[in-house]
């Protein structure tokens, strides 16, 4: 006769296995959703880049630039929303690896920011005031969460402001280059119009820098 201890072990293992696969399924679904959204955005960005290349090649900036500006704004917004989703998924999905998606997100972020610079050179102005926001990925930071809240409120108030978030401690070549360019040594830090503001920056200080066009 099977002892009660063995029976209990089998029951517990079955329960745990069931639980594990359920949690794994949930986590994978969330990670997959995130991955799909990043992929969609990458595809949209590729399309925009190709259009920019076409504009440059055939010098059609007058017709195409307004549309490019519009899609770029939408993409930056999407990317910033993805930033919140990424952080949420990262802290809640314990059985899914989001590191790869995170790197793709950061690269897309960097690429979009560079694309915006290119757009400005081709179209004259993008009508967008970018704010680069530097935060630590591996460390909890109340000031950074406060800074993010301030940036959210500025973005909501000003139609021309868009935020690009960069983690400073993930050792990614392109982010390191941006950090070095703007002499980022502390978090949170923000860059507005090529000006680095170290530490937490108030809403008023940001508004005084961005020439806010109210929503």
């Amino acid at each position, binding site marked *: 006769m099977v002892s009660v201890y063995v029976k209990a072990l089998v*029951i517990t293992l079955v329960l745990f296995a069931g639980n594990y696969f359920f949690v794994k399924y949930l986590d994978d679904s969330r990670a997959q959703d995130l991955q799909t959204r990043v992929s969609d955005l990458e595809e949209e960005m590729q399309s925009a880049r190709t259009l920019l290349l076409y504009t440059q090649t055939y010098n059609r900036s007058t017709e195409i630039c307004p549309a490019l500006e519009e899609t770029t704004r939408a993409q930056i917004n999407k990317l910033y929303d993805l930033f919140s989703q990424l952080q949420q998924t990262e802290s809640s999905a314990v059985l899914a690896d989001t590191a790869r998606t995170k790197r793709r997100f950061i690269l897309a972020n960097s690429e979009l920011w560079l694309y915006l610079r290119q757009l400005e050179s081709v179209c004259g102005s993008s009508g967008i005031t970018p704010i680069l926001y530097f935060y630590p990925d591996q460390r909890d930071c*109340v000031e950074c969460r406060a800074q993010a809240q301030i940036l959210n409120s500025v973005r909501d108030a000003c139609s021309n402001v868009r935020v690009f978030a960069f983690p400073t401690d993930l050792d990614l070549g392109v982010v390191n280059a941006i950090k070095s360019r703007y002499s980022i040594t502390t978090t949170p830090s923000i860059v507005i119009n090529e000006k680095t503001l170290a530490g937490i920056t108030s809403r008023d200080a940001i508004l005084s820098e961005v020439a806010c066009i109210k929503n």
Partner: protein
Amino acid sequence: MIKKMLEGLRNSFWFSALLVVGLFAAFFYALFAVVPYLAIFLAANFLFVYVAVVYLLKFWEKGEQKLSNKFPSASVIIPCYNSAKTIDRCVESVFALEYPRKLQVIVVDDASTDATKQKLLQLKKRFPSLEIMRHPRNQGKARSLNLALTKAKGEIVACIDSDTYPARDALKRMVRLFNNERVGAVTALVCVEKPRNFVQKIQEIEYYVAFGFWHTALAELDGLIVTPGPMSIYSAAALEKIGGFDEDNITEDMEIALHLQSAGYKIRLTTDAVVRTDVPDSWAKLFKQRLRWLRGKIFNGRKYRHMLFNSKYGDFGRFVYPVSFAVELLGVVVVSRILFLHGGNFINDLLGAVGVAQVDASLVTNLGIYSGAIVNSSVFFFLFTIMVWLYIVWLSFGIAKQKINVWHVPPMVVFMTLYSMFISFVYFSGMVHEIVGTERRWENKEKVKA
């Protein structure tokens, strides 16, 4: 002089408390730096569920117990200390016990300083057969019990706390479980007497679960670790063989149970016999009581370590006894991990909020800037644990023939969440007190239970 000061420090609550916090932080900081939190949570959860499933299986296996038709002679011992408020009702309950034979009732007054002595003299007038013994100075519960044992004539000895009120049929039901000479003790379903405040209502549920469900399952495994102090009955022969109660023990009811197990005696339980007892009515008193229980458990764990993982003692040595320590230790680790995480977040948030306030004071009240509770998908692993717990609580109410009503819900929620943290913290404090060697003693101010 210095030696005396050091001795004083060793026995100082605040010194111990400081040590608790210091050791707490150092030990867990080191542990959590090495072991990922998910591994700790899952290991603990697995063990909790596994143990619960073992006990549930044993609980479901429970069959009819073989009952004896004999009613041996019985002595009732009531040790008391400063029990003026409860002794009347306790003695009345004992004399109201339905038992086919005349009971010998002995009260031992352990040098009470309140009106217990006068109360006992009045009781003697009402119950002339009541035997009263008195210690000239306070000597503790175990010595009081042993003193009464020298006068006890019954084949069965019932030990009852002075703030406990057995149901009229309790003794009659319990005695029938002495169905062979290897049965050394029989325990009952201990319930809380008229829970009035929230602390007592939590304990009401705890007692149903502990003395109802867990004790039933443990008894099925011959693994009862304690013969509850409020009321347990013993075979006089078994008590004589093991030499009575350990007088240097602050949890003599646990020690005697372990001693009986060690000597090969069985301990039986009947949940049909109900005894009601007063319980601590404040968190401070509860903390002191549980600290004593847990320190007693650690102390007795050392004394009876030969039984741990020893298959000579059957399921008790192989599983029940070691697992009782493992579950509590892992409980401490899990609770510490939660406290450590949230404590760390709290300090971080507090310091961060000071910096934020300097830039924008209005943000300090924005909850978005603070660390949220850690709710991640690992909670799904705990959902099943919570369901098992709920089922056990429901079963326990059934054992006690109680219905769950809406007023039970708030204490039940606390019992299943924060109360476990409280108990784990007490356990950790108990461990530290044992390590630093603070003097073990019964607290006079504690509403004593053993």
